[in-house]
């Protein structure tokens, strides 16, 4: 009897120690594992990012693009004036090297040029590193569209109907990948990551770049990865492997 009690107490003590592991002031391992409560603002302790593995990305697959269109209520049309938040890009070495394929979307830069040029403050970076457009403040000037070196932003030219309740969008505003912020805030991964995993390619990995224990941080520490246009020193949250 006393032996059982002893073991039970030991387990309880371990549990208390695990729950109390402090990663940063006010942030414990326990809190990160549980996710953020709805009333709590996004925290600087987290920086959301993605790692795209071009070796796993199939050139004939566009599951991430269609999933993005479906999740965010985009039409999926590919006219010059239709919005597209994520697109597949083919890279071919003209000297006969292998062709690579990878999705390109808003890179969620730490130093976003779109935020620098926005005259109204509508383009902004959230505390957890997600770059967004506040459509209530956007005047549709499209400076950010010009400033973005990744051509990630779209302008809504036509009136929009039947929007998704989670993704309000309308004519006259600039928009881009939100990293599925409405899903992240509810502890779900972005739609493109989920769709890519469902095809079995698992080419996109989503996670917290600020947490050294996260899978994305460990893969970045282990393998050679690159940012697109590293010469611009924008420190994007989206990194690429195998390009």
């Amino acid at each position: 009897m006393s032996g059982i009690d002893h073991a039970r107490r030991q387990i309880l003590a371990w549990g208390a120690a695990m729950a109390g592991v402090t990663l940063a002031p006010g942030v414990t391992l326990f809190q990160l594992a549980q996710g953020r409560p709805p009333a709590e603002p996004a925290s600087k302790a987290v920086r959301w990012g993605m790692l795209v593995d071009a070796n796993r990305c199939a050139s004939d697959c566009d599951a991430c693009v269609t999933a993005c269109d479906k999740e965010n209520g985009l039409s999926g049309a590919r006219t010059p004036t239709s919005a597209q938040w994520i697109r597949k890009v083919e890279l071919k070495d003209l000297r006969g090297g292998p062709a690579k394929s990878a999705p390109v979307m808003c890179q969620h830069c730490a130093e976003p040029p779109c935020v620098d040029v926005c005259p109204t403050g509508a383009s902004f970076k959230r505390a957890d590193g997600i770059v967004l457009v506040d459509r209530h403040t956007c005047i549709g000037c499209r400076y950010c569209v010009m400033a973005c070196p990744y051509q990630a932003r779209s302008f809504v030219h036509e009136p929009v109907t039947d929007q998704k309740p989670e993704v309000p969008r309308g004519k006259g505003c600039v928009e881009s990948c939100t990293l599925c912020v409405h899903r992240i805030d509810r502890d779900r991964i972005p739609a493109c990551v989920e769709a890519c995993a469902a095809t079995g390619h698992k080419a996109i990995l989503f996670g917290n770049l600020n947490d050294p224990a996260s899978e994305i941080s460990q893969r970045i520490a282990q393998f050679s990865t690159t940012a697109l246009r590293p010469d611009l020193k924008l420190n994007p949250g989206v990194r690429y492997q195998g390009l």
Partner: protein
Amino acid sequence: MADRGNFGGTFGGGARARARRRATGLAFVLGCVLCGVLGGALPAIAAEGPASRVPKPVVAISAPGQCVEDTQFMLRNHMEILKHHRDQTVHQGVRTTQHSLANCVACHASKATGRVTGSKDAFCESCHRFAAVTLDCFECHADHPPAGIATNAALPGVVPR
């Protein structure tokens, strides 16, 4: 010379004071009229008085008394609450449902059409037509509850007043 100066000064001051009194009186009367119109109109929306020739908006509330705040408070301040919550949600990622537009829509969508706009009897549109206030929210936001949420039911996490 000094006297004339004083006299002139006093006279000028009296004329200005009279003009100010007149302007104040006019503003007071205008204010009373405006308050009467607005103050009378807003409670009339909620009150169920005897039949009147004054056209009133149709406000059909399927679950009376279940609102997140007092009805009279909501009539006057719903836009401020929504604006505050919208900034918190967009910029900070606060996703509480208590004061969210999605929750307003989920509860107040018409039983017939499932929407809060689109007809003169729809919850938001009926009042906004009556008050001649442009309703811009639904140019971008969905005017129907999200899939999987029953119409006229609060979203999860909402506490009725």
